[in-house]
């Protein structure tokens, strides 16, 4: 199949703060929405200024549908620096230059019945996981969902998962909701209880969390698909700026591009 990638100037449809420092942004683009798959992302250029210069990668959080037509998509983001701060100042009607959909998302081709998807999100890492959960549910799966955050406030999109009839198991570091602690602790005790699961783990979150997920998956003999982050310039595979170290089939390692071979990699292949 030929890759379809669009470079569009999209008017911002809606932007709301859903928690302090977290924003949900809606963009209308049937083109991007209809070819996007879970785990893919877009590059988003904030304003015409040369400062900041580079576009920012943002996962596709959910697809906006009407009568089963894919009309657009949402982005869920956290304000962490200059670019996201400027993005949060944008209002309805202003335009953003978007390139997408990009990257290789989660691989769901091998999903069959009797198989248990386990979805694990930490912090803003839940961004691509709602789209994933939707797709899994559409495929007739009922993923087990683990979500962790610093505090109840930062447990994002919980109701969205619930409206998919999923019941995320949650943890917060300050104990303000769910179990106090790390989401990987939750995951560990779950895996411990359900030994011999036929599951596969899908995870996104901060690097230390993903590293822990990879090692848990390995101990319990499960496969894992982890969505990684790296600084990006082009998002298209051209600049070779966004690489991570990946174990080769035979031996040694190679650098692979988060924007092209990733952002989703098999947990066992990643060299941390």
């Amino acid at each position, binding site marked *: 199949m030929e890759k379809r990638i669009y*470079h569009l100037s999209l008017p911002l449809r809606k932007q709301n703060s859903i928690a302090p420092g977290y924003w949900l942004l809606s963009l209308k683009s049937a083109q991007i929405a209809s070819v996007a798959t879970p785990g893919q992302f877009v590059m988003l250029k904030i304003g015409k200024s*040369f400062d900041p210069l580079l576009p920012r990668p943002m996962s596709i959080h959910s697809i906006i549908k009407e009568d089963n037509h894919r009309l657009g998509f949402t982005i869920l983001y956290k304000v962490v620096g200059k670019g996201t701060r400027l993005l949060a100042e944008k209002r309805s009607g202003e335009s953003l230059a978007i390139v997408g959909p990009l990257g290789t998302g989660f691989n769901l081709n091998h999903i069959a019945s009797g198989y248990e998807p386990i979805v694990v999100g930490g912090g803003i890492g839940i961004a691509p996981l709602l789209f994933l959960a939707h797709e899994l549910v559409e495929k007739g799966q009922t993923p087990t969902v683990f979500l962790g955050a610093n505090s109840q406030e930062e447990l994002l999109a919980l109701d969205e998962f619930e409206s998919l009839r999923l019941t995320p198991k949650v943890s917060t570091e300050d104990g303000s909701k769910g179990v106090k602690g790390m989401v990987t602790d939750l995951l560990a005790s779950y895996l411990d209880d359900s030994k011999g699961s036929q599951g596969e783990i899908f995870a996104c979150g901060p690097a230390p969390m993903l590293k822990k997920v990879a090692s848990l998956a390995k101990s319990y003999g499960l496969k894992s698909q982890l969505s990684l982050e790296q600084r990006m*310039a082009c998002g298209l595979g051209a*600049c070779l700026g966004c690489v991570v*170290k990946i174990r080769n089939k035979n031996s040694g390692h190679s650098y692979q591009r988060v924007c092209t071979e990733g952002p989703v990699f098999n947990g066992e292949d990643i060299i941390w």
Partner: protein
Amino acid sequence: MVARASPSLSVELNGLKLKNPIIAASGTFGYGLEYAPLGDLGKLGGMVTKGLSMWEEKGNPPPRICETPAGMLNSIGLENIGMENFISQKLPQLIQYDTAIIVNIWGREIDDYIKAAERLDGVNGVAALEVNISCPNIKKGGITFGTDPSVTFELVQAVRGKTSLPLLVKLTPNVTDITLIARSAEDAGANALSLINTLLGMEIDVSTRRPSLANITGGLSGPAIRPVALRMVYQTAKKVNIPIVGVGGISSVADVIKFMLAGASAVQIGTANFFDPTICWRLVNELEEYLRNENISDVNQLVGALREE
């Protein structure tokens, strides 16, 4: 008023014919195919491949890039798939597009360049070579080839002897007097000069107290360096008799025109591809529109047409 004829956009770089002066720059356009989903490569004047070596090169560990004010740093470490893989896997797809495919080559010793030139000489579909002399010369203790006029001469002459393809020599700006290097390359038989490559820079992450790049230093590119690139093109155009390809921070049709007024016969678009991935196509259209509006029949009339009196 009679309808104006379409202005002529084609340029000739001393043996290399381009349908228009807009070329995608090395390292910023992959092997071209990465941008194929976004536009018809056949509309561009040309494209330069990522720098190729005779071997597969893994490149530097990450982080490899970071943003700076109106610019970016990169230390990719010249990662590339190697000459043979390029010829067998990429070139067959690329030659389907009617654009000038310029292969950027580099090495660690003069011999690496010679081998690359020899290998590419008869290859169908290669329009020209661009010799990147901004690499450290391991035989000369790591000094960059392109910072020394006599090493530049020796290198370019050696490559010149091995190929009948048009030879673009790409100069580094990290020198006291770029016109001296330019003249060495000209004397050694370069058909044209591409300038500039990146400025050597550095960034530090205060929160970790570490360099932002794993390689510590990297190459600065983007709009930030445009005034330096424009100055070097201007100075060099006064000193050489071969065409110049301007590169460095170009991100609008006005920038293209500035470089041509300063003496460039064509331009390359680098970092701008990252923040505006359809820019090369837009520039072709906007340049034509500009010429039409200004009633200029041939783009070559812009070259060196700066008013200085």
